[in-house]
């Protein structure tokens, strides 16, 4: 039911972990639904994402989309990162089963929350 790409990211997820001195942290989902995704960003003075890590509780799709979004966003400017949608993450994985498109495809939302967290912190 999952594409090879999904299984690759599920089996060998990229950028798993936490960033102790993260510039921004974003989290979406809840344990009741069976999905929580948390993204940690490190952003430099030029608004470039220099490092990113994730931690996810959830199904195969939740883990694969989290892994994929970290790969897509590393080295990108914040403005570019904000353009990445959940749909784009799913497409980069070669698609997700229809039932997973909305319940487990929230990694870009987590990313956007992390960026917002960074901007909010910077503004203070």
């Amino acid at each position: 039911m999952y594409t090879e790409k999904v299984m690759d990211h599920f089996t060998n997820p990229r950028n798993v972990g936490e960033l102790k001195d993260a510039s921004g942290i974003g989290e979406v989902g809840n344990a009741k639904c069976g999905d929580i995704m948390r993204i940690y960003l490190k952003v430099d003075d030029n608004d470039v994402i220099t490092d990113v890590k994730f931690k996810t509780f959830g199904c195969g799709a939740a883990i694969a989309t989290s892994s994929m979004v970290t790969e897509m966003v590393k080295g990108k400017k914040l403005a570019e990162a904000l353009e990445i949608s959940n749909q784009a993450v799913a497409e980069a994985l070669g698609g997700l089963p229809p039932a997973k498109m909305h319940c487990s495809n929230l990694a870009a939302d987590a990313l956007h929350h992390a960026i917002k967290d960074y901007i909010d912190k910077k503004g203070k």
Partner: protein
Amino acid sequence: MKRIYFDHSATTPVDKEVAAAALEYMTEKFGNASSIHGFGREARKAVDEAREKVAALIGATANEIFFTSGGTEGDNLAIKGVAFANRKKGNHIITSAIEHHAVLHTCEYLEKHGFTVTYLPVDEYGMVRIEDVKNAITDKTILITIMMANNEVGTIQPVKEIGRLAREKGIYFHTDAVQAVGNYPIDVQEMNIDLLAMSGHKFHAPKGIGALYIRRGVRVEALQHGGGHERNLRAGTENVPGIVGLGKAAEIAKQEMAKKVTYLGKLRDRIISEVMAKIPHVKLNGHPVERLPGNANFSFLFIEGESLLLNLDLKGIAASSGSACTSGSLDPSHVLLAMGLTHEVAHGSLRITLGRGNTAEEVDYFLEVLPEIIDRLRAMSPLFGESANTVVNNPCSECHMH
């Protein structure tokens, strides 16, 4: 890579002897059991013999066995059939919150047709309390339907006591015994059972065949009309190969019962004790003692069931889970929730169901790979260990499907 099948509550491999018996009635002895000629008579004879064997497995007599397409049909025929045939006596049905959907959705259907249904709660082990059954009975109660053994957590219900209570009150008692038949000794007389549904593919017969036991004298209305098959209760040309297969599987199950119960029970106990000892933050779901010999069900905290199943599958092990992702809905298993588990804990459930083909080596291999998988998923989980306190933004507060 070796493949290990630990999902026998989903389905079982057809026994080779069973398959051979069924095949003969497709290619050689293909007659219609209703035909007068020799072809028909040999098919009829085989159907009659199979009926005897199925009856013998549960302590019934042959004329109390009605062949169906499987467990779901048996439950439908028992519940709707009793309800429609006895509605002048009353319109109240008692069941439990942990029944299979074949029972629950049938009861919900009847609620739309003038019946009232009481869904009894269960205790933390997934067991119905006799007191609750007693208290739910009214002068309108016509049927009590409680499963013999739960398909997810394996808890064996106090069927005999419920049956006695029903008998005393003149209420019919049906039990969905799909998981129990062939895996657990059953005697419908001793257990005070009026109706019992079974499914062939849960005990090494093919899919698409099952039977309903109806004690002599119980009034049931037919749901499917046509020819006079199954004594006017279930119209449709007999599935002779399936019936022959079911008979053979019942015969084998009866012969092997004691050995199988002991063998599976030993493997299961080893899995339960090792998993509980080796892995932290784990909960055994279901009753510690009163459970199906081949069933072990755990919740591993901080991880989600589908990713656990995928990891096991990558190691060649087939199991199942009550997580939402695997239940085909957005909620985790209704059984685990009825037992008082939170959604989070229910999402992390793993069901192992053993069969007679499983070996001690397979259990060893499972016990070897499981801890690594759990560790890996927990290392990835934001719920496990120290974690930053961030505001949770939840775009799907109700977990609804878009």
